[in-house]
C-alpha cells in the first residue's frame, strides 16, 4: 500500500495503480476521454493532466499513465491544470466542432468557443473525422484487447486518422460493435467498416424481439441469478482476446476456461418437471405467423406486456406504434383433429388477460375470437365477466385465416381476420393492427428423451403418464419418480404449484421412511434346478442377476429386481420363477381361457 495526497486528501492506494485509478477509487473525479479499465493507458487526450509535487519537484503529468508513489502530492484542479484543460477543450472543439460530447466537456470547463480554426478539410474515410479525437481507444480495443485488428492508425501529424487496412471495408471486422461503444465521441459509423448491418444476437427469453449480449442473465428470475457466457458468440472464443468482462468483475467470478462437466448423481427419487412448449403457430400457415410481422405468439405478446420486456411494457406493433385494434385468436392448434386434439386449459384465461391488458394500456378495439370460453378456476368466471364489461368484443367462431390482402380502402395496411361469427350467422372480415395467436400447450422439447431415460409412459399428446388419473396424479409407474406441472398435462400456475408440492411431499415420504417396499412379484432362481447356464443374465436390464462361480448357479438380487419376469420367460430349465406369476398359474389361466364356453 502507498500513501499519497490528492487534492489535500490522504489516500491509501495499492502499489501499481495509476493516479487516475487511485483518484477514481477515492471518489475524486478527473476528466478523461481516452482511458478505460480494459485498455492500457495511452495518454492521448491529455485531459487527465494533473499537477504533481514530489520531493520538491512540480510537474504536469497525465494521471492515467502516472503510477502512485509514496508521498506524492497531486493537485487535480489547480489553476495551472484548469488552464491547460481549457486550452485542450478549445483544441478539441476546433477538431470536432459538431461533437456534443466535446461541447459538453468544454462547457463544464467554461469553454464555449474556440480560438483555433475549425477543421474543415475532413478526409472521409471509415471513421467520421468530424468526431474522431484520435484517442485510439477503438484501435487499442479492436487490436490489443479483442485481437481482431480491423482498425488501425494511418498517417502522421495532421494526416493521422483511424481507418481499416487499405481503407477498404474490412473482412476481419466481426461487427461486434465494441469500437462504437467505446468511442468517447460516438464518431464511428459501422457500415463504413463493414457494409453489413449488424445482426443482434436474438434474446431467447424475449423470443428474438430484442437482442442480448454474449454475456447475459438469461431472465430476471433465473436461478441462480448470475450471467452466463454464450460460447458461440463470445469474442474470446473467436479470437482469444477481449475478456473485458473479467476486468470489470470486482468479484473475479468470471473464468473463461470453464468446461462443461458431466456429473453423475446417485439419487433415490426424482421429480420430473420439464414443463411445456407452446404449439408453434407456424404449423398453421393460414394465420400468417412468421409471414406477417404483427402476428404475435402468445409468449411473444407476454413479453410485450411485461415491464421488463423489449418495449418496457408498452404494447406496440413492430412499427413501434400502439395498435388501434387487436384480434386475439383462441384455440390455435388446440381442440383440432389435425394438431392437438385436447383442450390446453390455460389459453382462454390468458387470452382474457391479454384482452384486459390491451384495453387498459392502449384503449384499442379488442376482438376475442373463441369457440368456448373455459373459465373454470377460482375467480376465473368473475374475471371473464369483468372483461365482458370492458367493451371487449367476443366473437364466437374460430378464425379461419389472417390475410393482408385488402378488399376495401379501409383494410389497406391492416391485417384482416376472416371468421364466421356463429352467433350472428355471418362471415366477417375484421381489420386489425395486431393479431395474437393463443396457441395450445405441448410437452417440452426433448420430452421423449426424458421419457426414455426414466422409463416413463406417455399419455395422449405425449404428456407423461401418471400412475392413476384420479388416485395417483403425481406418481409414475416407476417407484421414486414423480411428476409435477405441465409435463404431465396442460395446467395453470395454481395447479402446477399444487402438484409440485404434492410431488415434493411424495419424494420426501420415500426418502424419510427409511424402509424400502419391494414389489411382490420379484424373481427367484431355484439353486436345485439352476445349471449356471447364464442365459438369464442378459435378460435383466437392472443387472439384478449375477453368476456365482463358487456355487455354479445364477442368483437374483431381490432388492434390484423390479419384477418384470423376463428372465423367467427365458430360462431354459425352468429354474427361474416369478412370485405370483408362476408358470403353473399361467398354464391354469390358459386352460381356463380355453375352457368350453
Amino acid at each position: 500500500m502507498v500513501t499519497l495526497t490528492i487534492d489535500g486528501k490522504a489516500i491509501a492506494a495499492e502499489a501499481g495503480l495509476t493516479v487516475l485509478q487511485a483518484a477514481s477509487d477515492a471518489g475524486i473525479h478527473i476528466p478523461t476521454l481516452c482511458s478505460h479499465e480494459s485498455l492500457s493507458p495511452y495518454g492521448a487526450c491529455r485531459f487527465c493532466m494533473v499537477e504533481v509535487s514530489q520531493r520538491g519537484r512540480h510537474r504536469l503529468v497525465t494521471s492515467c499513465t502516472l503510477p502512485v508513489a509514496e508521498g506524492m502530492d497531486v493537485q487535480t484542479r489547480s489553476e495551472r491544470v484548469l488552464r491547460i484543460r481549457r486550452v485542450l477543450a478549445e483544441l478539441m472543439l476546433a477538431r470536432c466542432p459538431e461533437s456534443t460530447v466535446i461541447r459538453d466537456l468544454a462547457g463544464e470547463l467554461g469553454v464555449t468557443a474556440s480560438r483555433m480554426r475549425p477543421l474543415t478539410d475532413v478526409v472521409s474515410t471509415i471513421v467520421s473525422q468530424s468526431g474522431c479525437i484520435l484517442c485510439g481507444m477503438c484501435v487499442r480495443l479492436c487490436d490489443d484487447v479483442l485481437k481482431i485488428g480491423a482498425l488501425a492508425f494511418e498517417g502522421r501529424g495532421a494526416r493521422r486518422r483511424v481507418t481499416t487496412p487499405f481503407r477498404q471495408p474490412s473482412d476481419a471486422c466481426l461487427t461486434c460493435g465494441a469500437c462504437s461503444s467505446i468511442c468517447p465521441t460516438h464518431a464511428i459509423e459501422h457500415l463504413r467498416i463493414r457494409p453489413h448491418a449488424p445482426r443482434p444476437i436474438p434474446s431467447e427469453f424475449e423470443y428474438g424481439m430484442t437482442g442480448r449480449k454474449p454475456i447475459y442473465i438469461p431472465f430476471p428470475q433465473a436461478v441462480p441469478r448470475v450471467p452466463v457466457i454464450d460460447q458461440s458468440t463470445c469474442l474470446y472464443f473467436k479470437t482469444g482476446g477481449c475478456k473485458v468482462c473479467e476486468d470489470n468483475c470486482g468479484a473475479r467470478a468470471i473464468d473463461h476456461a470453464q468446461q462443461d462437466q458431466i456429473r453423475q448423481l446417485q439419487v433415490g427419487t426424482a421429480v420430473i418437471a420439464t414443463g411445456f412448449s407452446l404449439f408453434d403457430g407456424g404449423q398453421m400457415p393460414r394465420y400468417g405467423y412468421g409471414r406477417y410481422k404483427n402476428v404475435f405468439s402468445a409468449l411473444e405478446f407476454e413479453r410485450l406486456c411485461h415491464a421488463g420486456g423489449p418495449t418496457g411494457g408498452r404494447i406496440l406493433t413492430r412499427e413501434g406504434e400502439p395498435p388501434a385494434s387487436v384480434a386475439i385468436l383462441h384455440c390455435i392448434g388446440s381442440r383440432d383433429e389435425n394438431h392437438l386434439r385436447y383442450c390446453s386449459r390455460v389459453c382462454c384465461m390468458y387470452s382474457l388477460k391479454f384482452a384486459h391488458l390491451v384495453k387498459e394500456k392502449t384503449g384499442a378495439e379488442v376482438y376475442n375470437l373463441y369457440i368456448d370460453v373455459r373459465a373454470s378456476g377460482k375467480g376465473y368466471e368473475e374475471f371473464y365477466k369483468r372483461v365482458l364489461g370492458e367493451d371487449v368484443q367476443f366473437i364466437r367462431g374460430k378464425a379461419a385465416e389472417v390475410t393482408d390482402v385488402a378488399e376495401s380502402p379501409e383494410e389497406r395496411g391492416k391485417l384482416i381476420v376472416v371468421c364466421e361469427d356463429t352467433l350472428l350467422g355471418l362471415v366477417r372480415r375484421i381489420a386489425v393492427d395486431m393479431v395474437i395467436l393463443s396457441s395450445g400447450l405441448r410437452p417440452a422439447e426433448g420430452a421423449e428423451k426424458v421419457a426414455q431415460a426414466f422409463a416413463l409412459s406417455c399419455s395422449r399428446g405425449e404428456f407423461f403418464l401418471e400412475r392413476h388419473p384420479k388416485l395417483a396424479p403425481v406418481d409414475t409407474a416407476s417407484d421414486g419418480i414423480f411428476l409435477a406441472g405441465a409435463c404431465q398435462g396442460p395446467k395453470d400456475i395454481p395447479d402446477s404449484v399444487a402438484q409440485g408440492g404434492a410431488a415434493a411431499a411424495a419424494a420426501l415420504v420415500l426418502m424419510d421412511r427409511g424402509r424400502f417396499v419391494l414389489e411382490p412379484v420379484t424373481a427367484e432362481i431355484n439353486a436345485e434346478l439352476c445349471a449356471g447356464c447364464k442365459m438369464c443374465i442378459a435378460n435383466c436390464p437392472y443387472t439384478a442377476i449375477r453368476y456365482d462361480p463358487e456355487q455354479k448357479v445364477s442368483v437374483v438380487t431381490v432388492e434390484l429386481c423390479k419384477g418384470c419376469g423376463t428372465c423367467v420367460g427365458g430360462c431354459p430349465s425352468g429354474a427361474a420363477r416369478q412370485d405370483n406369476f408362476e408358470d403353473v398359474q399361467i398354464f391354469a389361466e390358459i386352460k381356463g381361457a380355453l375352457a368350453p364356453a
Partner: protein
Amino acid sequence: MGKPKVAFYWCASCGGCEEAVVDLHEKILDVVQAVDIVLWPVALDFKRKDIEALPPGTIAVSFINGAVRLSEQLEWVRLLRERSGLVVAFGSCAHLGGIPGLANYTTRKQIFENKYLRSVSVDNPDRLLPQTRTEVNGYELHLPEVWPVVKPLDEVIDVDYYLPGCPPPVNLIASALQGILSGQLPPKGSVLAPAKALCESCPLNDSKPEKMSVSQFKRLATTSADPKTCFLAQGYVCMGPATRSGCGERCIRGNMPCRGCFGPPPQALDQGAKFLGALASMFDSRTEADAQAVADSIADPAGTFYRFSLPKSLLSGRSAPQPES
C-alpha cells in the same frame, strides 16, 4: 426262484441302443450271469409266442427302445407291459420320440409318396403303396399299419423309468441295471439322469461370459469351432442349457455342440420352446428388422430345437391339414 428275467425290444429305432448294451463289453458277462434275458431280437432267437406264454408280470424289467409308429410295435409293447413288472423307456426314441420323431414334420401321405412314388431310384409303374393286407399265391399276407403320427413310448403304455440319451451312455445303463436289480430306485416316472442342465458339468462353462451377444448364428458346416470356448459364446447353437446332463459331455469333448438328446430338464415342458426363449436373450438386435435377421440366421429352428423331442413337445409335430369343406 431263478434269475430275474429281462427283455430288450426295439420299435422304430436305429439299433444304436442295442449297441449301447453291447458296449458294456465284458460287463455283459456279469449281466448275463445275473439275469435271464428272455427277449432280444437283435441277438437272441426268442419268438413272440415265447413271451405270450409267460404269466403276467414275470419279466422283471423290459427295456424298450425306439418310438412307436407301427401297429405291430403297439402290439408288442402292450404285450411286454402286461408281462413285465417294470418297463424302462430306453434311449431318446422311447423317451421323447427321437430322430424317427422328425417324421411328425410331414404327413404319412408325403412319406409314402416320397418313398414309393417320387424317389428317383424306385421303379414303381403300378404306383403301389404298402397295404396292410394282400394276397399272394393264395396266401393272405399282413403288414403292420403305419400310424399318422410317431409317438413316444409313454403315450401308448405306462412307463416306469426313462433312460435318456442317443444312445444312453454305458455308465447310465450300468447304474440303471444295478439299481433295478438291487431294488434301489427313485420314484416311479423318474428319468434316470441328473436334473440339472448340461452347462453345470460342461467343461466349457467357465469360458462362457455372463452376457453373450450374437448377430448371426454360425453353422458347423461352414466354420471351425474353437474347442476351448463355449459354443454359444462363439455363435453356434448348442442345446446344452435346455438339455439334461449325465451324458459325460461326449459331444462337447468331441468339439461338437450339444444336440439335446437327453431331453429337457424336469421343469421344462417343451424342450424346443424353452431353448428358443433362452436363445433369444443372446440376440444382438434393437430393431424389428435386426431381430428378424438374427432369427433367420438359424436355418432350421424346428429341426434343431426339436431334433430328439418333437413327438414329446406340446404340439408334437405338424398341425393337421384343413379338411376339404
